[in-house]
């Protein structure tokens, strides 16, 4: 017999023998994907329908930058260039058909893939970027890695006892073996021997129970700040679908950010047109309204809620308002009045203006709200949502921001 017997190796019964060699490389790849996503967040926020989705939604996002490159052909001669209307110099490939293929038959309409700048039109690997699937939750986490709420931890801290964390607090004479302090124990042994004059003996007295020292631990008291975010959105008639979408995108980012970063933060949603009411998260992100606009109604509602539930002495407060700035002019005075009060009460009052009608309110606000804890941003398209959001919460802002106290002091002086 020419062929020697084949060797068969059965599937190992124990899991430990089935090692996962790829784990490290998968983690490394994942890491690179995250980096690529972070580099492209503005595009992703603009392009991906993430608004109002729950955290376990899986979304597909294009990732640039981790594609592998090699020298390859893009364009190339058509040989004799006979193909009618053939793009000059494009690559030709061969394929098999079902037996009925005709000259001039269209294999694929070029609406999507054909525009591919890589020019790989016909080949299987025609995608110029690499698509990955990611849970919304994970995406949000990546997005907010660099951001933090400005002026946090200023107001009085609430002290909470966190049970998991213990801190060291000296030594004690009784304890469990796990908490034995070997160094201190030996030191007390040596001290006893020296005191008893037995230290020089070749066979000194052994360790006694009295010598044992244990580390003492006590629960750590963690200081947590109280924070509340007040989201105010203009839902009036002039806020058309696009504007509402932009405003919601903005608040969605804000809400996701706050929810992930600060477990103890409370969030209040207020929707207003000529009157305002407090709504649920779902209503805020999904319900539409119409009617005229009186921005002061939204601010008054916010001030009411602050007075009722979140005393500014104890709470770090953040208020964000999004509108197209199309306010009844008769309301402007009341609006500014309330805005000033909001500025006084809050660590930060952010105003996001979307595609303003006429001049909008940005200038009015800027003129009348001198404090640095007022932050106006504008965004006209979905591409601008993320930069605006970053401007509001990014590190660069915090560097030169002042607290309301400082503003107050400055004004008093």
């Amino acid at each position, binding site marked *: 017999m020419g062929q020697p017997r084949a060797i068969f190796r059965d599937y190992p019964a124990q899991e430990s023998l089935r090692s996962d060699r790829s784990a490290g490389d998968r983690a490394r790849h994942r890491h690179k994907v995250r980096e690529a996503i972070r580099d492209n967040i503005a595009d992703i926020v603009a392009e991906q329908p993430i608004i109002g989705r729950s955290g376990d939604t899986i979304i597909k996002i294009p990732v640039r930058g981790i594609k592998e490159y090699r020298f390859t052909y893009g364009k190339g001669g058509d040989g004799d260039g006979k193909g009618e209307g053939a793009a000059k110099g494009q690559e030709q490939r061969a394929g*098999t058909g079902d037996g009925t293929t005709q000259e001039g038959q269209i294999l694929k309409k070029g609406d999507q893939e054909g525009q591919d700048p890589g020019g790989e039109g016909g080949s299987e690997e025609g995608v110029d970027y690499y698509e990955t699937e990611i849970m919304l939750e994970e995406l949000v986490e990546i997005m907010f890695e660099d951001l933090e709420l400005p002026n946090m931890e200023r107001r009085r801290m609430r002290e909470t006892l966190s049970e998991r964390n213990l801190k060291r607090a000296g030594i004690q004479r009784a304890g469990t073996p796990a908490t034995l302090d070997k160094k201190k124990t030996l030191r007390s042994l040596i001290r006893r021997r020296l005191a008893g004059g037995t230290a020089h003996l070749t066979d000194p007295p052994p360790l006694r129970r009295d010598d044992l020292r244990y580390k003492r631990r006590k629960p750590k008291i963690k200081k947590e700040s109280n924070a509340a975010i007040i989201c105010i959105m203009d839902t009036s008639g002039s806020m058309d679908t696009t504007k509402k979408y932009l405003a919601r995108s903005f608040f969605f980012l804000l809400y996701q950010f706050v929810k992930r970063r600060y477990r103890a933060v409370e969030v209040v949603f207020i929707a207003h047109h000529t009157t305002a009411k407090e709504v649920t998260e779902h209503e805020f992100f999904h319900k539409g309204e119409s009617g005229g606009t009186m921005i002061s109604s939204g601010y008054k509602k916010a001030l009411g809620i602050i007075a009722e539930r979140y005393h500014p002495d104890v709470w770090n407060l953040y208020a964000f308002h999004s509108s197209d700035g199309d306010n009844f002019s008769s309301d402007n005075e009341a609006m500014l009045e309330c805005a000033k009060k909001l500025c006084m009460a809050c660590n930060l009052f952010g105003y996001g203006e979307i595609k303003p009608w006429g001049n909008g309110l940005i200038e009015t606000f800027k003129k009348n709200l001198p404090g640095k804890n007022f932050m106006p941003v504008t965004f006209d398209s979905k591409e601008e949502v993320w930069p605006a959001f970053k401007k509001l919460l990014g590190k660069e802002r915090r560097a030169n921001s002042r607290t309301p106290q400082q503003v107050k002091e400055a004004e008093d002086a």
Partner: protein
Amino acid sequence: MPDEKVASGKNLAPQAEGADWSMTDLVAWDERIRVLVDDFGLDCFEQEFEVCDHEQMLGFMAYHGMPAHYPHWSFGKSFEQQKTYYDLQVSGLPYEMVINSNPSVAYLMRGNSLCLQILTMAHVYGHNDFFKNNFTFRHTDPKGLLARINVHGNRIRDYMADPSIGVEKVEPVLDACHALSLQISRNPAVKRLSREKQEDRLIDAANKDPKIDDKKLAKELGKPLLEAEEDLLILIRDHAPDLKDWERDIVNIAHQEAMYFLPQIETKIINEGWASFWHHQIMSSLDLPHGTRMEFMVRHHQVIRPTPGNINPYHLGFETWRAIAKDALGLSDEEDDGGPLPLLGATGKEARQAMFNIREVDRDVSFLRQHLNENLMRKMDIFSYGPTQQGDLVVNKVSDEENWQSVKQTLLRQVGMGGVPIIKAIDIDVKRGHKLKLLHEQGERELDPEHARHSLNHLFDLWRRPVDLETKVDGKAILYLVNDEGFSVKE
């Protein structure tokens, strides 16, 4: 484009758990298969089969079948992609994965049916025979393969663990090596000339040419490159001025690996066709239970069916090999019932010998050039296509009397290493800071600019001195330049 998978995979829907076989069954069927392998005169290395689960199979696929392979994020990417497809049931797993080592190692997935296991084993013996006998694999040293991969893997893992080097430094070197690894001498049968031999050649040429005086010759002999170098990783390993020892080592490892993959790329169609031809022959000759036989016919059809608009190497290879066999046996298409061919008698032996000769001396390009005839081209409805200015993909030629040869030329250009442009280093200018000059040896096709830019940047990561590449766009020569200031194009 060549795909660099070691072993050839074929996608099928994943099998449910709860297999209908035991190890004893596999051994017994292997016994029967080997009798036929002997009868047909296939010449194989010793064979080992390892039973694995689907997660392991995904892992083997990502690492080209070699679990001890050095780590790199691209394998993680490959794993994730395969796993996503598998989880979404877009594609199944390949039911065959063979490594061209000696002894040959192949994996059998435990979730597969008995029929698939038998089919896989029969198919694997076909590959095994091909690996052992085809000329392109002769230099691959299959005996030492697994040990070598292991040693290379450990060395790179050591560099990654070394606190003075670390993953962050090793990774860009591997990234660059991977981008350049297919820029390699095409024909492994052509031996590289040593520096001495190259010098001798130069001196001989100078002696015959009175115009070259001693001074000129001495200048020529003093150059780092005496002849154009097609092997870019070798060029970097031997001439890059600033590489550290560990970097040179990694470049060398990557080059050896590329040398191992080259024959796989060059023989995809002929090799898959060969294995499919023999699994069909063996399975049709085995006394299979009725249900298994029916399943085999379905599976076999799934393997060798054409993928519309593309080339399925199993399909093209199988049809071509079968035509060769029928031709050698003197059978016409009408006499072919699709069953096993009479390859065992005296005429059969002669036909087999003719086939064995072809499997020894051909790779995809030569195999198709000689054996893919008009009749086969028509039967498989092979056509050529390209994008229009609107970006539509349009068929421009079909295999009719007038155009089949043109279509065939298009096909021949895309098989094997045909999709990889030839780029040669033609000069290292020592006086100008080791500036490297590259030339794209151009046919009709142009370089993809995006890929060229990134690949050159990778090259610069290792060369670390200015590099320029000459190529043509719309018939006009242009230079791609990369230096400390980045990438630029000069018309």
